[in-house]
Structure formats: C-alpha cells, structure tokens
C-alpha cells in the first residue's frame, strides 16, 4: 500500500469515529515509516475536516463529533511524543482560552466549540462555565494564548463578555489577545459594541473566525 492508501485509511478511521481503528492505523503508518507529522496532516486532519462538514450539515451530531474527537486525541497522545523526539513541534494552529462567562451555567455550545477547535488543530484551555473574568486573563497570560473565546447564552449574562474586555483594557493587555464572543444571546452588533475582535453565529463559523484572528495576530506581531 502506498502512502496515499494509508492516509485514506487514517482519514476513514476518523470519519468512522472508531478509536481502535484509528490507533491501529496510526501504529501501522508509523511502522511503515510514515512521519508522525504527516500522519496528522495528511491522514487524521482531513478526516476531521469531513467530520466537521458532516456536523455542519446535520448528518452527524455532537455525540459523533465527540467520538471522533476522542479518537483523534488518543492518536495525538501517541503521535506528539514522536514529533517531539524528532525535534519537531506539535501541529497546533494557535492557543485558545475558552469558557462560558460569569453567571452563565450553560455548557453545550461551548463544549461543541471546544471539540471543533481541538479537532481543527488548536490547543484549547477550557475553563468551563461561570468563569470569573480574572480566570480568563490569568490563564491567557499563563499559556500565552492567541485568543480568548467567551460564550454567553443569556441576555443577563452577556455583560460578562464586556467585563473581560474592559478588564483587559484596564490592565493594558487588550492588544495582546484577540477576543471572540458567541452564544445564544450574542449578536454581531453586540460584539462590535463591546469591542470584541470577532463574533460568529455558529461553532463551525467560529473556527473559521479563529483562523482569521490568529492570522491577524501573527501579522500584527511580525
């Protein structure tokens, strides 16, 4: 079997959300001498792209997305040490600190976003729900985040997103991080009003937005 065959097999194992098959195929690829980085870039990530598209088109739902993500994460536990051994770096596209703002106990939208970020190659620190504004800021400082992403479902909790942006400004950190907001109660107008860098109406579109923001961040840092 040529490399194309093994990459197709890796891709399909992710699409099938079959953790055992993913791990077995990863082992097979590594045994055949395929570079760990290529296993990810040419095999697993294309599979996750398909999963993302299927999720967007409602062919699959959150449970299937989670199964695929868990299978991917198991494969990464095998592949990342190999990449480090060979002196390479992980394939991460960016670092994101994510959470539902203070006072808001809703998690599903945020959890979907975490999975989509992770399976799109981002490193994610999920702070959970009801997150204090300083937790966002402290974690972003600690991990040198590119993006702070905040979710809010309720009209009464939206203000928590503004609180974080205001606090970043007061601490002189506003330009250090890109801030994106989303969630049931948010709108593009709201995002503009509070000075966020971006807003997305769905988790899937948030991933595209993150790529744009990380690119802009890299551009402004250069």
């Amino acid at each position: 079997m040529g490399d194309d065959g093994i990459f197709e097999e890796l891709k399909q194992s992710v699409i099938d959300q079959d953790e055992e098959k993913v791990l077995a195929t990863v082992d097979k690829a590594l045994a055949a001498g395929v570079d760990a980085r290529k296993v990810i870039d040419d095999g697993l990530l294309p599979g996750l792209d398909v999963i993302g598209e299927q999720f967007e088109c409602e062919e699959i739902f959150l449970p299937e997305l989670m199964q695929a993500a868990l299978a991917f994460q198991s494969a990464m536990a095998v592949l990342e040490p190999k990449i480090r051994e060979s002196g390479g770096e992980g394939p991460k596209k960016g670092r994101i600190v994510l959470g539902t703002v203070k006072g808001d106990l809703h998690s599903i939208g945020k959890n979907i976003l975490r999975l989509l970020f992770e399976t799109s190659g981002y490193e994610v620190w999920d702070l959970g729900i009801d997150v204090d504004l300083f937790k966002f800021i402290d974690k972003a400082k600690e991990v040198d985040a590119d993006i702070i992403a905040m979710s809010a479902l309720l009209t009464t909790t939206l203000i928590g997103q503004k609180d974080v942006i205001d606090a970043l400004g007061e601490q002189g950190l506003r330009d250090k991080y890109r801030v994106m907001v989303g969630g049931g109660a948010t709108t593009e107008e709201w995002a503009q009003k509070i000075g966020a860098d971006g807003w997305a109406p769905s988790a899937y579109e948030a991933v595209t937005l993150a790529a744009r923001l990380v690119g802009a961040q890299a551009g402004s840092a250069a």
Partner: protein
Amino acid sequence: MIDLIEVFDRAETGPLTSETDYYMKRYVPKLAEVIARYGIKWDKQTIVNTDDELTDNVFSAAVDLLAEAGAYCPETNRVMEFTRDEILTACAQAPTSATFGEGRERKAMRGRRPDTTDDRPWVHVGGGIYTTDEQVFVDTVEKMASFSIVDSVSVPSILHIRGKDARVRSPQEVLATIKTVRLAREGILRSGRVGLPIINGISAASQPASMFAATYPDFGLRPSDGFLIDFLSEMVVGYEALQKVAFYNTIGANIGSTSTPLFGGYAGGAEGVAVTATCYMIMGNLIMRGTYHYNAPLHSKLHLSSTKPLIWAIALSNAAIGRNMGYPMVNLPYLGGGSGTKQYHYEMACYMLAVVTSGGNVFSGHPAMAVQPDSLVPDDHRFHAEIGLAAAKLTRAEAEPICQKLFPLFGDKLKEPDKGLTFQEVYDPRTKRIVNADYQRVMDEVREELAGMGLEVPVS
C-alpha cells in the same frame, strides 16, 4: 413515588463520575441503545406521527433511558439513579391536572391524550421577550390578559433598573425580578381579570434568591401561579434547580418542570430529541415535582423549534406522555419569523397543529432568531391561540397533510427569517388598538389561507 428528600439524597449517594464520562459512557451510548432497542426512526418526511406503536416505544425508551443512564448532578459529580419500578410508580402517580388561578379564573390544565377532539385545551399566551419600556410591558400584559380565550399568561422580562441592565446574580437582578412580577400583576389587574394566573412570572434562568424574593405574596404572585424550574445541559439536575424545588414544593406552588433538549447537541437528531424530551417529562414529575411540564426543544444552531425533525420530535413526545402518563404539558415554540410576519404565522400553525393534536395544550410562541426588544405583539398571540383551539378539533391524521402544506411556506426561510414588528409599530399607544393596516392584513390573509388548507380558524 419516592419522597423528595430521597430524591435529593440520590444526588449525594449515586456513582461518582465526571461530566464528560457521564455523557460519553452513560447518556450518549444509552440513548443510542434505547433508540435501537425500540426501533425508533424518523422517516425524514413525516411531521405529525400517527403510529401509536412508535409513540409507546418512545415512552418505553424514555423510561429505559432514565433507568439506565440516570441524571447528573454537577455539584456533587454524582449520577442520580432511579430503578425502573421507582420511575414507573412515579409515572403512574403523576398529576394529570394542575389547578391555576384564583376566583372565577381558577381552572385546571389537564393532561390530554392525542386525537382528543372534544375537549378544550388550556390556552396559554405570551413569552419572556425582553421589554425595554415599562409602559409597554404593562400594556402588553393587560392586552394579553384581556383576550377572553386566554387561561394564563407568560410575561415579558424587564431586565433593567434605572436604565441599566441588571447583571445576573446581582442585587439589581432581585429588584428587576420583583419589578417584573409587580408590573405583571398590575397589567392583569387592569384587564379586569384579577385572578388570572401567570405561569412564568419569573424566568427559569433567574437565581433562586431572585425567584424566592419575587414570590413574596405582596408582590402579586401566588402558589396558584406557575413557577418554572429548568434542567440545565442535557440530563443535568443542578443544585439551584433543586433549591427551587425544595422551596416551591414546600409552599405548595405549581411547579412547571422545564426542559430544552437540543437538536444537534448531546441528544443528537430527531429520534434522540423525541426520547430525551419524553424522559424530561418523566423526570419533571419525579425529580422536579412538577404539576405541569414546559417542553421547549430547540435547534442548537438555529435557536428555534420549527424545523421539520423538531416538530416531529416535539409532537411525538407529547403523544408519548399523553398516552402513557397524562402529565399536563405546554410546549414553548421558538419561531424563526419576526412578530406579525406570514412566516411567523405559518410556523406557528404548523407547530400548533402537530403538538395540540398530539396531546399538548395551546401555548403561543415567540420569535427567536428575529427577536428584538418589545416584539411581543399580543394580537399575534390571540391569533395563535385561535389556531390552537381550531387544531384541537382535528386528529393527528387530519393535521399531518395541513402541516405538509404549511412547511414549504417557511422551511427555506428558517436560516434567514423575515424581520418583524414591535408593539409600538402595531398599536396606538393610547387606545391600544391596531393601527398598522399591514399587520391586520397579513393576519387576515393567513387566516384565509389556513381555511383553504382545511383549518378553519374562527375569530374569538
């Protein structure tokens, strides 16, 4: 039925597990298992199910789901487990009616069976849309309460104090909640129907302190009103909800157990939502000690409930409970179109035809995607209540072809719905009469179109 303290104890004594493990090792696989076990399948076309074997299978699957997956308490990280016997006993002992209101407005909302065409369902109108102007708030409540066909109202929310939005869990939230309740009762007083019940005077999202404060009798709420207590994420029973259960159960109030299973979330697609929504109604009685259920399944991306698979699932969950438990239900429709638009009325008619013929009571909905402050327009709600009462004279089999005619009129617009009107754009501020001729014309045209499809909707 096991007693309430025992229910609370289950949150402290059940198996310890993380939230992720609860979903990935219990709820998600068990849901898939019970769906396969009972052969539950949506054919991607039907809107109103008429297959009673499928209906009963959904109920059985919901019982199995609760017995095998349990519910999850995030504060203790434990699974609240219940045996099949405990669940079935609770179902057998569930209330089949809930009495609301005072004086001449005191009436019972009853659990309904599907295809019951000779009763009058409970008529509930309103919704928790954000209102910015306090005069509009009182006028809106007064107008809704003044419609003679209305049995209870939901009221809009006032989220601000002295012009500033009240932050969740802040002292201002307590004051805003109290203000909402006081003004709601004032609006009802002005309508001349002082005993009319408010069945969501306080948003389910409010903190317990705000809800308890606003329940102080002098502010105008009574145990004969309704108090919503909701589940958070799928199958999650949080301590805040249980605190509310402890309080409202103790004062003998009507508890509206409330759930919002998400299409596209952990529940998956149509089949998962149908089973999970039914399971919530069972849990609403067993855990929340509800006297009625407030069923509000929602699309996770579109934030509305009028997609074809969702209407199928919502109607099916009503039929499953109606045939097997008799717990009174209302269903909150989140609609795509804005107030006063044809899209909005078509969506409502399709939803109402499906759920009312399947055993639900009548509940007018509100705009979701196109929502804007002050967009609760009372005459929409009267029209939708009239549609609900007309639907109650039909069977599911009679409703299905009408729904199939209606769906193409709005299905393609759900992602980018028509914008609607506000209270101020429809009514004369002094007389509260409709002054927007287009608004009235749209409603009249839809009424005529519905008659042409086989649904005569008399003006009340």
